[in-house]
């Protein structure tokens, strides 16, 4: 039975998930924009950590940032229902087998 409070809580969760999803999409777009770093195009220096040209260090940072955006995405907007559906089907299958 769906009560008013559980309905409100579910709506709030949906709204938060939508916000995070939009945030993740914005972060991916931001990464794509930052990837086109024309401001470092001619730069050989500074050497980050004393050996990595800035253009290379910037893109290594983009790879790290892509991993972090991935982390935010899997933590806050992972489609959990995919595994839930799987479990529900398995339970239903077991139930049918037991009944027969």
């Amino acid at each position, binding site marked *: 039975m769906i009560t008013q409070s559980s309905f409100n809580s579910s709506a709030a969760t949906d709204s938060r998930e939508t916000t995070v999803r939009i945030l993740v999409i914005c972060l991916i777009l931001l990464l794509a924009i930052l990837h086109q770093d024309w401001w470092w195009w*001619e730069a050989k220096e500074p050497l980050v950590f004393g*050996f990595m*040209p800035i253009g290379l260090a910037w*893109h*290594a940072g*983009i790879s*790290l940032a892509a*991993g972090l955006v991935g982390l935010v995405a899997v933590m806050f907007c992972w489609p959990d229902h995919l595994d839930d*559906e799987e479990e529900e089907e398995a339970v239903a299958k077991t139930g049918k087998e037991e009944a027969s």
Partner: protein
Amino acid sequence: MSFTIILCYLSLLLFLGVFAGRLLKKSSGDFFLASRGIGPFMLLMSVFGTTMTAFALIGSTGKTFEFGIGVYGLMASWSGIIHAAIFFLIGAKVWALGKKHGYVTQLSYFRDRYQSDGLVLLLFPLVVCFVILYLLIGVIGAGRFIEGVTPETFSRSEATATAPLAMAPADLKIHPDWKARMSVKDGKLSVTGSLHPKRKGLFMGFSKAPEWKKAVGALMAVDKKTKKANYESGAVPKWAGMAIVCLVVLFYVFFGGMRATAWANTMQTIVFMVMGLIAFYVITDALGGPKAASEKLLANEAKNSVMARESLIGTWQFLTYCFIPLSVGMFPHLFQHWLTAKKASNFKLTVVAHPICILITWVPCVLLGMWAFGILPDGTNPNAVLGMMVSRYSGEVLAGLIGAGVLAAIMSSMDSQFLCLSSLFTNDIVSHHFGKNAISDEKKILLGRGFVVLIVLVCYLIGLSNTQSVFDLGVWCFTGFAGLFPILVAALYWKRSNKQGAIAGVLTLAVLETAGYLLSLSVHEGEFLILGMMPVAFIVTITTAVMVIVTLLTPPPSDELVEKFFPAKN
């Protein structure tokens, strides 16, 4: 020594194949999809190993030598962003559909989604053709690589290389190790037995006389037209290297199916990542540390251009390269790997760690390529850069280990591709046309194994023939897969998409791909670009536009079909 280490590594793979074969259950689901039981770590390693080829080690170093550090942004960081997004948005969804409807291959999904055998008959030759081209790059690359890293493996005492030498120089001091094999008489310089090209520097040091340098140059010459050397390298020939690699991969795929492939991929991915790091450490140490190497290059005004992108890579080329990593979404062998996951949540690790794995593999190789530009002579073959740095700054043992690492990167893609082609033939052609229940599970495994043997044989025979044109054509397989990607996105996310739109998209791709390849033949130097942009950008855009327009002009799919693939949420 290098060849011995490589042989030891290949033997390890054979052992793994036998072990996985013992665990094989007698079901086609186990042979083609490892019973959909792969965990998060193995999924990450399989997926990463499958998307990375020898290019990750040899190509990245060589391309940086040619085009500077921008190669990382062009090929690696774009891939980090786009691959991870594809695994998140496409991989997990494909897995769920595959599990729900029992798909084994990409084409079985398309057939069901669009209810069209015609679409599959169009896609099948295209996909098979692209995968075979991709495979051939690996097979030929492995043969060439083994030939390159195994010089003087076989001592050919009967072989003699000679060059004219007018008179013996007065200061000639032949190293004692070479006295038995080198002779100077009757106006000729002769060396018996196998020779490595790197001996040239050693021989040059035997005398300062110009006629001696000329004679050594002629002795070690390679005919530019025929590419035939004056000397016998004693290396494992290309045909034998290709045969060895094909047989090893065939062995473990044949006996262990997808389970052996996933295990082998996991091991091979770890091997090539670790070997890349070891090579980086040893070479960097020999160069006096990373700081000293970079500072020395920076101080060299004539060579430090590789530390930036100006005049080496165009801004539009850099931007439009983002279309190439889309190809990963349509790789049928990767699609099959996705279906092997035990749970959808197993994709989480792959989404997060894939860009980091790219970083770990590519940054050291890009740095090596950058430093090599300041060290090696101009005109060095880019594909030989990593090998030359390894042989110059380390011993034979490391050269052998790096060799094993490069072969690991090649084979970790080849095995999945062999298995995937076998799955496509068995499931989408034979099984589909004879009826699902007409062929028993055991017969399906038998058929699958038979097709693996056939495909390996076909690839090997093509690999023996005209290799350069196959290589040139192979580059276009990535463009082709990227051009098909919009059709997969539409199938997964656009309820209105229909078979007419998908067929129109595939036909457009086929026409544009052929036209693009023919146009590229007119370009003899550098990358083929259109208005400074990658051709794939135009191909993906036009294919998408045609697919959308045709879809909107034709009837929508039935409600029943929409409900099957886009069920309403309760």
